[in-house]
């Protein structure tokens, strides 16, 4: 056991896989000598050398295109897109090229790669460097999508992503990079497509992702302590594949569903899950499904406004309390 930060976990997860498999290579802007602008790849250049850890120009299309071409001919690249917002400048690869390659070629070609990207808000970077864009990637058939909330999950899901034969989008949360957590020694390999019940409960189910996980947990404690509401908190972790069994199972037990989403409202990941539950678990439900999200706005830079926009523990607790009691 060791205590690691989330950013250290990124480097450790990658190192674990690079050590195991010589075909794993890294590319991105400022990731090599400088160790990444979020310092999440520190040490990898030194450990694995300039052929395996490569700085690129500011050419996101070339980064993802090259990763794809390498993946389909035999390597297993990990590409960094510095801020997830920048997926918009190379979205053709994310939406049209990588995820459709296997299908269009009738299985002749494969695209085993990972796109790591700094996602999410909380660091006062303003509207174009703070978005939670898991939904941009969740909606595309052919991708897998994960968003870990703890250092241990970072390592395990990174390993699973690298070993997976599909293109996997790996959302790292910028506001979690400094977060610390216990991490077991030795190799860690997790499983894509598995949610985790972090706090069992019987009165309602709260689904959360990434930065919203600690906030949902904190809200659950408040609900228990102050309102006698025993919430089950599930870390969704993987949007594709989606662990619907765990979620449906939880709703079958609690009868109530809340999602806590950092993204702006329209078509956040919770919308899909809400629609699944409203179909398949309708008769289990004891009341409305409620989504707690950032309002449907671009994000402001100012600290007090940004704090106001994102769901936080008091707001989550308050909303759930009012719905449950109302």
């Amino acid at each position, binding site marked *: 056991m060791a205590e690691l930060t989330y950013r250290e976990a990124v480097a450790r997860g990658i190192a674990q896989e690079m050590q195991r498999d010589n075909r794993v*290579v890294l590319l991105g802007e400022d990731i090599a000598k400088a160790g990444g602008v979020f310092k999440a790849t520190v040490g990898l250049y030194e450990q694995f050398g300039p*052929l395996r850890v*490569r700085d*690129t*120009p500011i*050419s*996101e*299309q*070339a*980064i*993802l*295109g*090259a*990763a*794809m*071409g*390498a*993946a*389909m*001919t*035999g*390597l297993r*690249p990990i590409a960094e897109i510095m801020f997830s917002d920048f997926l918009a400048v190379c979205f*053709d*690869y994310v939406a*049209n*090229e990588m995820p459709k*390659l*296997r*299908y*269009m*070629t*009738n*299985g*002749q*070609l*494969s695209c*085993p790669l990972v796109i790591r990207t700094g996602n999410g808000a909380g660091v006062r970077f303003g509207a174009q460097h703070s978005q939670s864009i898991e939904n941009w990637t969740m909606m595309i*058939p*052919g991708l*897998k999508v994960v968003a870990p909330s703890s250092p241990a999950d970072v390592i395990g899901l990174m390993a699973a992503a690298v070993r*997976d*034969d*599909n293109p996997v989008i790996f959302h790292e949360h910028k506001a979690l990079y400094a977060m610390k957590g216990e991490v077991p020694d030795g190799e860690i390999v997790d499983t894509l*497509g598995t949610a985790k019940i972090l706090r069992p409960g019987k009165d309602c189910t709260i689904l959360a992702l990434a930065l919203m996980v600690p906030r949902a947990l904190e809200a659950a404690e408040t609900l228990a302590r102050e309102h006698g509401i025993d919430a089950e908190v599930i870390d969704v972790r993987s949007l*594709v*594949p*989606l*662990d*619907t*069994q765990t979620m449906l199972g939880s709703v079958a037990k609690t009868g109530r569903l809340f999602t806590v989403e950092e993204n702006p409202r329209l078509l956040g990941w919770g919308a899909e899950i809400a629609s*699944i539950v409203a179909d398949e678990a309708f008769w289990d439900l004891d009341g409305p499904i409620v989504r707690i999200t950032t309002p449907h706005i671009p994000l402001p830079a100012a600290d007090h406004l940004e704090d106001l926009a994102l769901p936080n523990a008091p707001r989550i607790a308050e909303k759930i309390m009012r719905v449950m009691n109302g």
Partner: protein
Amino acid sequence: MAQKPRPAAASAAGNDDIGTENRLELYRLQVEIRDTEKRAYDLFLQNLIKGTSHLSLGQEAIAAGFGVAMEKGDKSFCTYRGHAHTLARGASMEGMLGELMLRDIGLMRGKGGSMHLTSVEHGVMGSYAIIGAHLPIACGSAWRAQYLGEKDVTVCFFGDGTTNIGAFHEALNFAVIWKLPVVFVCENNLYMEYTPIGEVTAVHNPAGDRASAYGLDKIVVDGNDADVVFRTARAALDKARRGEGPSLIECLTYRHSGHSRADPAKYRPPGELEEWLKRDPILIYKQRLREFGIGEDQIAAIDAESRRKVEAATEACKASPSAPVELLTQDVYADGGWAWRN
């Protein structure tokens, strides 16, 4: 702005660096590509080709020149106008035509369609239908070869119009700074879909005049002369294989047909097509064979064999059923299925 067809290159009969075997192969490929694409056009008129399709009638010399110069194991990245390049690497006529007809016999059993022809066993690593997307992808393939020490070269084909999209620029810079074994081939056929390239491009040679922006040599060649293309291809492939990095080659050519099956190509100035038909690559090459003493019977035999193969392929395609419906949800993910949930 518009280029004129170039006068035929001087005969080099006395000094043959290409050789009879390659020449026959260059001719055979051009004829087979031409015949197959003409057949595709007929099948379209018979409503047997349902999706779109983009013929490269008139551009065969480029596919043939590269097809013969490339080695087994080399990788091709093509566009939606990629029938010729797919055949030139050895993929079967029925695989190609069958895919255009969206039948089970097609290269991708109808799942991809004419714009995405792929035959990995022949080194055809896909045809890409979003302009420019495959240039960076080709870089990745070349990077893999470089990293693993594999000796294959990646060749990436695209049109004149493609030089104006961002991915072109990113890929060229990337290939040069990483010194990748990749050859970029711009088939300048004077038009994007319906708009003349000269109206939307800041320089005369859309690829050639940009080479220096990446520290590359300007290479602009007659794309209707298969010998010229072959020589140029061989030099660029050798250079890449020696580890000396990428090349950017602009081949001047012309498409005889419209952009796609929907296009009657009315936007062309009168007489333009006629001028270019005089420089039809197959006409040129038949003449070349004669200059090099290849007998009429040998030429006729190649012509006849090509027609025979096209007939056989057509029959095979017509006899092929549609793919089984189970394919609909296969191969979305690597486990062979499409499950996004448990």
